[in-house]
């Protein structure tokens, strides 16, 4: 007979295991990259072939690189959190059954920590080869301009610490939610977005606002806060619009689902807005750099901007995946109702399509809004830019296309789970 812990570990399903392993492996690789940069000598490193790019070579800007790498783990940890929520309904039932059978809270937490901690440990170990690939990728392709990570840079003794920390984090997350995450009642949203708006209006009266670095920084921070706080409201608005205008069943299902529980979609929308903001700024910044900067070390600015753009794209993909996982979780929670729908003649693809509409409705409008604010804002703030609409248009269209593609890919990847969940064969047991 297999040990109960192993049975429970395997009961979570392969999809959940794969997501936990994938998210922790990628997190480990990024943390090891950050540790490698921290471990570099505290002196100015050589640039060019065999050396590092400017922002890594300069010890003054290195903390920014480390921070950027750490920030990149945030969407991956969000994905891990979402993966842990996957299958909450069945795990809740299982937990209740185990409790009835006499399991204590400690037993449940121990099993929960094993259920997530074990795959997280596997992911942490797999993070090592991922790190090697990442290391090779960051060293390659820069030629004479220097590498993002210089030759020989490695995390050293930090490696073990990082691996243990990632596995322990997984175990902690599992122990905290032994029964998955119950769906909480949607809370009434308060108009907190009025605060940054009021501050922005107040700042506007300051004559030298844009002549001061502090003023510009404050405007950017307030704009990001405004976008973030407005996002859930915007998601709710999109949902209501979808329901009112729904010309198809997928749109109706998506709109109603969003309107019923706008919280997770709102949080994702806020993150998407921030990503859109970055994706809006980067192309305009690069065009401005190309047109106005004549120095030989353009790489000093160009490479970090490109890396920031790449990170934003990665974050967008992870957020879309996280949103798709949440949507799938909702379908799994409603599997009986959805299986009944399919039994009554609703094609299973309608359910999948409704998820796609839901993801698109959250990501695309907020990504576009973020890109519009970011690109026009930056273009307006940059005195040197000729203000041609080209870069702004490119930034907005590219952001819309990328966010739509990310949503499409994420929902397509999860389609088999949805199809299986809504199979009317489950009506006997759902």
């Amino acid at each position, binding site marked *: 007979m297999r040990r109960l812990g192993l049975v429970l570990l395997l009961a979570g399903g392969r999809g959940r295991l794969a997501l936990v392993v994938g998210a922790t492996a990628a997190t480990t690789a990024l943390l090891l990259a950050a540790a490698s940069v921290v471990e570099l000598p505290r002196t100015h490193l050589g640039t060019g072939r065999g050396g590092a790019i400017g922002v890594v070579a300069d010890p003054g800007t290195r903390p920014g690189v480390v921070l950027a790498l750490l920030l990149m783990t945030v969407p991956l940890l969000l994905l891990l959190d979402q993966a842990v929520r996957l299958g909450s309904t069945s795990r809740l039932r299982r937990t209740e059954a185990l409790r009835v059978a006499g399991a204590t809270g400690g037993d449940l937490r121990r099993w929960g920590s094993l259920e997530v901690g074990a795959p997280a440990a596997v992911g942490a170990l797999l993070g090592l080869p991922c790190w090697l690939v990442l290391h090779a990728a960051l060293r390659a392709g820069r030629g004479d301009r220097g590498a993002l990570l210089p030759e020989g840079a490695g995390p050293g003794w930090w490696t073990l610490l990082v691996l243990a920390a990632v596995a322990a984090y997984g175990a902690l997350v599992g122990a905290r939610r032994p029964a998955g995450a119950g769906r909480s009642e949607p809370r009434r949203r308060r108009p907190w977005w009025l605060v940054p708006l009021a501050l922005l209006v107040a700042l506007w009266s300051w004559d030298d606002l844009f002549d001061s670095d502090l003023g510009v920084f404050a405007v950017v921070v307030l704009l990001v806060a405004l976008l973030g706080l407005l996002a859930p409201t915007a998601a709710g608005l999109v949902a209501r619009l979808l329901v009112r205008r*729904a*010309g*198809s*069943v997928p749109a*109706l*299902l998506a709109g*109603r*689902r969003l*309107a*019923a529980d706008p919280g997770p979609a709102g949080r994702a929308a806020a993150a998407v807005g921030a990503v859109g903001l970055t994706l809006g700024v980067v192309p305009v910044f690069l065009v401005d750099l190309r047109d106005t900067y004549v120095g030989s070390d353009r790489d000093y600015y160009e490479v970090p901007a490109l890396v920031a753009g790449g990170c934003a794209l990665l974050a967008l993909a992870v957020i879309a995946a996280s949103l798709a996982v949440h949507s799938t979780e909702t379908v799994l929670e*409603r599997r*009986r*109702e*959805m299986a*009944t*729908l*399919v*039994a*009554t*003649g*609703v*094609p299973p693809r*309608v359910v999948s399509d409704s998820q796609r509409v839901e993801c698109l409705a959250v990501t695309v409008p907020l990504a576009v809004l973020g890109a519009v604010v970011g690109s026009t804002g930056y273009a307006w703030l940059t005195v040197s830019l000729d203000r041609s609409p080209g870069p702004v248009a490119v930034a907005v269209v590219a952001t819309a296309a990328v966010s739509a593609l990310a949503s499409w890919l994420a929902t397509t990847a999860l389609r088999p789970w949805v199809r299986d969940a809504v199979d*009317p*064969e489950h*009506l*006997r047991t*759902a």
Partner: protein
Amino acid sequence: MTDTDPTGTSATATPLVSGRDLHRSFGRTVALRGASLDVAAGEIVAVTGPSGSGKSTLLHCLAGVIAPDAGTVTYRDHRLSDLSTDARTRLRRREVGLVLQFGQLVPELTALENVALPLLLDKRGRAEAQAAALDRLERLGVAEVAGSRPTEMSGGQAQRVAIARALVTEPAVVFADEPTGALDTLAGEQALAALVGAVEENGCALVLVTHDNRVAAAAHREVELRDGATAAAEVRR
């Protein structure tokens, strides 16, 4: 009156739906072992039997929701196994109504939207679909919950909304699996009366799976399942 009919079929009318020698297993659990049942147009048939006798599996096979491992299901002389998945789905949507014991309405949709869903899928206009759905809700006496979500309705109201959804496409046959099983006596009686009344008004057939004698008494014919096979004796009324 009690007839003896070894196939559990009606000998008096041309069958609208016919299941012959149906076998179905779920893993090692055998649910059906050669069950047969014919249902004529406009007929109300009750399928009874103890728990685990295969009643729900038989109903799901006849409705085309699941495929039997062996045996044939025909609908108006078309073998369901010969139809593509899409064709079977369309057939279920247009010709078949399904009422289950619980958990059949989409929680996020209003009653009106739940009932209008099959029509919207058939590319009917939103206004037309909603008008037909409202008419159906009115006829079943639950128009007042048209704008409510399932969680805001009583069990009896939700079941009548589910009946409205099953009937909104004017199907030829309705399959109901323990339609009163999750309701109290009064709500159960009301839901059953609504179902039988609506079925008779529409002139469609009804197959009722139940272990409740009072529900079975509403049928023209009662067929009993035992250990996955149709019992030899059936009750006609």
